[in-house]
């Protein structure tokens, strides 16, 4: 399963599904990471976590642990 965590920097991916439930999932989806959304992985923070992504035209910081819940293709 390919996730947002394993997606390469600079790559453009499409969200297939969100795993997890409750507040965590809800928050990610509220911010626009929904099924079919296109995400560009921008860069990793200087200390290796979190990652910066572009989704729906704006920049978002996501922790790697949370990025793991986003299945992409």
């Amino acid at each position, binding site marked *: 399963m390919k996730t947002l965590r394993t997606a390469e920097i600079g790559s453009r991916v499409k969200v297939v599904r969100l795993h997890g439930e409750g507040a965590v999932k809800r*928050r990610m*989806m509220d911010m626009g990471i929904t099924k079919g959304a296109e995400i560009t992985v921008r860069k990793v*923070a*200087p200390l290796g976590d979190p990652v910066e992504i572009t989704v729906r035209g*704006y920049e978002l910081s996501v922790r790697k642990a949370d990025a793991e819940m986003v299945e992409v293709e």
Partner: protein
Amino acid sequence: MNIRIALAGNPNSGKTTLFNALTGSNQFVGNWPGVTVEKKEGKLRRREGVTVTDLPGIYSLSPYTPEEVVARNYLTGERPDVILNIVDGTNLERNLYLTTQLTELGIPVVVAVNMIDVVRKSGDRIDIPELSRRLGCRVVEISAMKGIGLDEAVEEVLRAAESDKTQPVHRFSEPVEQALSAIEARAATGFPEAQRRWYALKLFERDEKILGKLQPDAAVAEAVEKEIQAVEQKLDDDSASIVINERYGYISDMIRHCYRKKNAGGLSISDKIDRVVTNRWAGLPIFAAVMFLVYYLSMVTVGTFATDWANDGLFGDGWHLLGIGSSAYEEAAEQYGDSDAIIQAYLSAYGNEELAAALDAESESYNAEAVGAALGELLNLVPADASVIYEVTDEETLAVTEYASGKTDLEAAVEAYLNTEYKAAPGAPTPEEYGVWVPGIPVLAANGLEAAGTPEWLDGLLLDGIIAGVGAVLGFVPQMLVLFLLLAFLESCGYLSRIAFVLDRVFRRFGLSGKSFIPMLVGSGCGVPGIMASRTIESERDRRMTIITTTFIPCGAKIPFISMIAGALFGNSPLVATSAYFIGLAAIIISGIMLKKTRMFAGDPAPFVMELPAYRLPTVGNVLRSMWERGWSFIKKAGTIILLSTIVIWFTSYFGVVDGSFRMLAEDELEYSILAAIGSGIAWIFAPLGWGTWQAAVASVTGLVAKENIVGTMGILYGAGGNVYASLAAAFTGISGFSFLVFNLLCAPCFAAIGAIRREMNSAKWTWFAIGYQCGFAYAVALMIYQFGLLFTGEVNVIGLVAALAVLAGILWLLFRPAGRRGLKKAVRTAS
């Protein structure tokens, strides 16, 4: 006509700018009840009877963050007459997500597309009529910063409040709509028609807060659940996700029809800045440089200058108007140096009573001629090869340093005493002669009271109680304003979010946010602005954690007593101060890890999904306003606590029973005071820490007024024998002294900081928890230091050692036990 407007929108959408533009200076800033979220209300400019309530910046009306809950409760409970929804025109897609939720509430909505100037400049076009049709509400274009379209927006809002009935236009997929209709009919008929759909939707999403509020009976709940499950099975997802997906689907479609982008791709200026600022290699050095600048400006140069003026000038002896003459005076004072001390030392070694009387500046017959003659005689009496040791006491730490001097030193001192430039009488130079000297408030008040002939107790109450208390409140303000100015700039230009991005990895281990760095950095200068700086942290939990732990860092006011202990008991070893900083840091880390696992801080983990807003140059007005708002709210909310506590401590330390009669005491009669009685009463508590004396207990209590007071109190209580440091060395061992130091370092901060905690926590319960935790933690650490320290000296106290071991075991367990976070476990289980 009374109209209530609710201003809603995403964070970083320009909501604050719009609010300020709409209301001008008619604002009331407070907190929403029970949470640390700020509440602002204002009267609309040039309109009678129109109130604007600024809701917290939110992305959604989900029930998870305190901001969202507050906004939702206000909208559904108070039901404002109209919602003004500000959306960022440069980021329409995500901003409209909230809009689609707002239009479902059954309250008229007006959408203001902000930053329209930026949109137009980039050549993009927004089809406003089409947007309006698809949202089902009025839409206007504005630029809050440039002041474009604001009057039209107000007109539309007022018109909407009168006549509109906003109905959501967007429809969900067929299965969802069917379920919604069924749920509406079953469970939401008790509401006015306009609100039924919203409640049905919340029931469909299984919103716990709404379920708890409605309490549908079992049969209804079961029927609703059945509807939900049918849809979930059909669409293969959970109901809340289905709703979000379809919402965003509708919005994407809307954007395609309403938003024409001129050129896709290409890096904006903001992107270019971000490339450098959060760069893998340059990110940390840039961060360090920015932090250095913040610290340097607020804590070292401008801020400290301002606070010194407030404390030593305005609420101290006085100051030179415009600072003219200060440096000349300081130079003269430095040149004059220890002349007084040298003359006194020779006077007591070689002089006589007659000379001493002539040199007594306090006496009524003091005059320049007699002084000159007396000093000449003193010089004659001192043999050429005389060598006298004189003492100089440091005002801050009471450290006494001894210097050897010969007759030439005395000659120089006499010369300085008689001939320093700019002085009215012989002796040390006086600041009045060097510029326009403005006396401080306490001096003026003291003179006024003396002239009025008020009773002694009233003088004391006014000077040592009230004026000192007000001074304690206001003394922090200038420095705080400098810091808030910098913070407001960093916040509104977008860099603060990048700090959180850069530091998140380190801080989240301790249950803190990357944004906690600034409060802690600032806290090393002064804890009060440090605590106030926690306002910028987005998650309430991180905010609370930061507030509790910030004051563990030794602040500027703790340095004097740390130096005092180091000087009296550890031969001025620099290791003592260094260890204080390490202990402070360790306390933050350990507390973070321990508290993170407690039930108070557990619960649903808020994921760290944070917007990194585009860089923008903030407006001067907004930055200044934000600075002033924070400063003023400190004065108002923290002021009362600080003032009251100062008065209470003043009363208990200046009144007491002497020889069976209750009366007011002189400063050096502290041992008879009520405070001393309280100290004796509670001293036993500190016996296990190695310093169960009433003096030490009293010193700790007065430290609550201001930590530097510990030194003054110790000076009075241990200074009877002359040398404070020697008495301290006799009263404390190295171990008990260090235990005393650590306790006072970590325990409850001064009243000003407690006031700030109260202001930021916005809850008595959380304030008491913070103070209780700090004191408890300080006690535990000091206990371990003393009892384990005794092990090395071989004077083991078995009961104490057992207690210390138990405390150690308890802390270790709290540190290493598995996290009891329900939500996390769930997330892990479903992810694997």
